[in-house]
């Protein structure tokens, strides 16, 4: 049976990995290759790397850095940031990406998505939207409000029409709040699309991922909670396996039999007892 995916969402500002809060405050984490090496070791299912400054700077994500960081990463890698032509996609794929995420490039789409789908197949194209709730409706915003916001259902219809292989939805409202995913938003996307969905924005603890998996047929993209914590992905998977969620367990670092608190975290004493049991 197809597993529900726990995806690491790694945000870059230029060459620096950051945490993001509300799309406007960013805290530095460190170097991409080191972050990826640990996530791979902790059995993450996939990685999405987005350069959030690239479009603003009229640039693309640093392909040389991606290439170097991807050498020992044997899980799927999706790359985004300023990708707006077939040539950009080709460069991404030649530098270690398996898929590309396209956000602003789809907003001012001049037909290149259709061409890219023809050439590389839809499974390679992830269309991404940053979504905000305004006056009771959800709108897609792009590139620091450079473009007029469009209704999320309208955006979704277009994304499916041009042949998106996956839909990536990030909630601007929930970003960095640690209150959980925007379930109403994800439900709208789930109901109006038969393309695989990736939900992002708001996961503050493992329980929030369970909440998403309980209600919605979607992958969970998590970012902030992966950093500053040893074995972060393995711990999350241990909790999800213990809660009978259909996830691919962690092989090397197995936390399946531990006692988790209601948030899905280990208490410090539980940490210690595991240490001594081993």
């Amino acid at each position, binding site marked *: 049976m197809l597993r529900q995916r726990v995806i690491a969402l790694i945000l870059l500002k230029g060459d620096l990995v950051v945490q993001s809060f509300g799309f406007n405050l960013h805290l530095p984490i460190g170097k991409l290759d080191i972050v990826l090496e640990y996530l791979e070791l902790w059995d993450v299912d996939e990685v999405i790397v987005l350069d959030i400054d690239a479009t603003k700077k009229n640039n693309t994500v640093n392909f040389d850095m991606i290439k170097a960081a991807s050498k020992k990463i044997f899980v*799927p890698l999706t790359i985004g940031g300023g990708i707006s032509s077939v040539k950009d996609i080709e460069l991404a794929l030649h530098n*270690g990406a*398996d898929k590309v995420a396209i956000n602003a490039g789809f907003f001012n789409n001049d037909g290149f998505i259709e061409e890219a789908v023809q050439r590389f197949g839809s499974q390679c194209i992830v269309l991404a939207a940053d979504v905000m709730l305004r006056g009771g409706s959800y709108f897609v915003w792009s590139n620091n409000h450079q473009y007029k916001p469009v209704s999320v259902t309208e955006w979704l219809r277009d994304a499916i029409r041009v042949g998106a292989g996956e839909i990536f939805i990030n909630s601007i409202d929930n970003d960095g709040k640690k209150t959980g995913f925007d379930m109403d938003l994800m439900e709208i996307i789930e109901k109006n699309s038969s393309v695989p969905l990736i939900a992002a924005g708001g996961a503050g603890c493992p329980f929030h991922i369970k909440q998403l998996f309980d209600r919605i047929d979607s992958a969970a993209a998590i970012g902030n909670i992966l950093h500053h914590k040893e074995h972060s992905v393995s711990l999350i998977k241990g909790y999800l396996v213990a809660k009978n969620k259909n996830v691919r367990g962690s092989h090397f670092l197995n936390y399946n039999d531990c006692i988790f608190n209601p948030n899905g975290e280990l208490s410090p004493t539980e940490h210690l007892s595991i240490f001594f049991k081993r």
Partner: protein
Amino acid sequence: MTKLGVVNFGMGNISSITNVLHYYKIPYDLINYTEKNFDKHYDGYILPGVGSFKNAMDTINSSGLGKYIIQEVKEKHAPILGVCLGMQLLFDSSTEGGGARGLGLIEGDVQSFESSILRVPHVGWNQISILKKNLLTDLDNNDYYFDHSFYVSTHEDNIISTTDYLHNFPSIVNKGRIYGVQFHPEKSQLYGTKIINNFAKLCGGGNA
């Protein structure tokens, strides 16, 4: 020394495959579709690929790669491993894009997942059920990473493992020294990269 040829017809992420070959220190050459002549012989071939069946076959045929691969596999009995689209290309034909002919190395055809129940493409980690003892893997029920909208339909003699999405479809196929995997071993962590190493072993190389 055993050396593999990795076929590059200009679509998809060749570096994911070559990253694994580097990791296991398996010698290889890229066989680029832009080359003028294809006359070198390798101990085995990897045919990776993502994207459209018809586009891929157009490039493979017009570049001369198709004739070369068929000759190497059929006349010189060189082993070949097709990955994802590369596996589908080993078969007779596909219904994709109004129909296209494949390399015809294994009898069978390629069909699309059509479903109102499940999401397409089939993307993520799914398990394989091994039906037959084989040289690529003996790890039953293991997870591998899939990303595809089409699947292969072939005689059961050619099927090594199946995977369940909507119905059971072949996830590993084999006929003689011809192998195909529908999932991405190069993106399936240790148990996936081992499959590529095992293929190199059956070509006479690989790493212990």
